[in-house]
């Protein structure tokens, strides 16, 4: 690395690495992954430095590259988990649905939703709640977690997520449905039940 870009990128490494690592860790819950993605981001920034226009701030530019890498990572997780493991997901679905619903498809009495107390804004400021939420997200089968991450990371419409993941819309709604049911149940058990 010999040119003008090198000096600039090295300065950026010095200034932004800590923020980028912490953000990538937050988005992937995985330390090694966060480090890899940040490293790849700096390499990509170096290789395409000529496309960087001083119109945007370096931090904004770096984070937009990093964000794309995070999205790619979740897409890859989804493919790795769901495509070869459809059977496991099906078993997981069957188990979850029969846990929540009786054979006629209606809520089992003890699983019927009861009111949740609390305000979402305040809850997210509570480190304890965040811990529980992360635990519940991590307990999802990895393909379901990846689909949830892609759904909420940048508010893409369902059609383009389906295209990215190579699933039918019916399949996509089933995955989101199961994932939300499981998350709800996990939060109910580990958080809301104790707040009543």
């Amino acid at each position: 690395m010999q040119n003008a870009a090198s000096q600039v990128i090295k300065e950026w490494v010095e200034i932004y690495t800590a923020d980028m690592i912490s953000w990538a860790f937050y988005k992937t819950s995985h330390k090694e992954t966060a480090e890899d993605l940040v490293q790849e981001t700096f390499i990509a920034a170096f290789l395409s430095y000529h496309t960087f226009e001083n119109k945007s701030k370096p931090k904004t530019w770096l984070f937009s590259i990093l964000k794309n890498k995070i999205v790619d990572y979740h897409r890859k997780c989804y493919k790795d988990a769901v495509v070869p493991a459809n059977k496991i997901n099906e078993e997981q679905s069957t188990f979850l649905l029969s846990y929540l619903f009786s054979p006629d498809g209606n809520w089992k009495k003890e699983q019927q939703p009861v009111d949740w107390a609390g305000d979402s804004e305040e809850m997210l400021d509570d480190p304890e709640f965040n811990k529980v939420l992360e635990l519940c997200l991590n307990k999802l089968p990895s393909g379901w977690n990846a689909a949830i991450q892609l759904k909420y990371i940048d508010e893409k419409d369902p059609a383009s997520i389906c295209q990215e993941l190579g699933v039918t819309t019916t399949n996509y709604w089933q995955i989101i449905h199961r994932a939300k049911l499981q998350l709800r149940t996990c939060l109910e058990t580990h958080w809301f039940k104790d707040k009543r």
Partner: protein
Amino acid sequence: MNNKNPFMVSCEIASLLIEKKLANALTMGEKRQLFIHNLICKACRKYEKQSIMLDTILRKKIGANQDSFKGISIDKSLIEKFKLQIIRVLDNK
């Protein structure tokens, strides 16, 4: 609820329709099914409320961008080590 009537869907189906509703993805027929189901099913009305709340939470949690992100502190010495590692990698490019 019985499933013999074509306008009646089970709670399992209704909770799936709720996810589609939150993304404005219901067909006319599904809208009607969910509307009727929710009229008579208190549990699914609660589920819908909770699902909306979960949406808000997930949107903030997962969709948080670097500006609204509050930060997780990571060991400083690890960060310094990692910076050196990146610079080494870049030097070899």
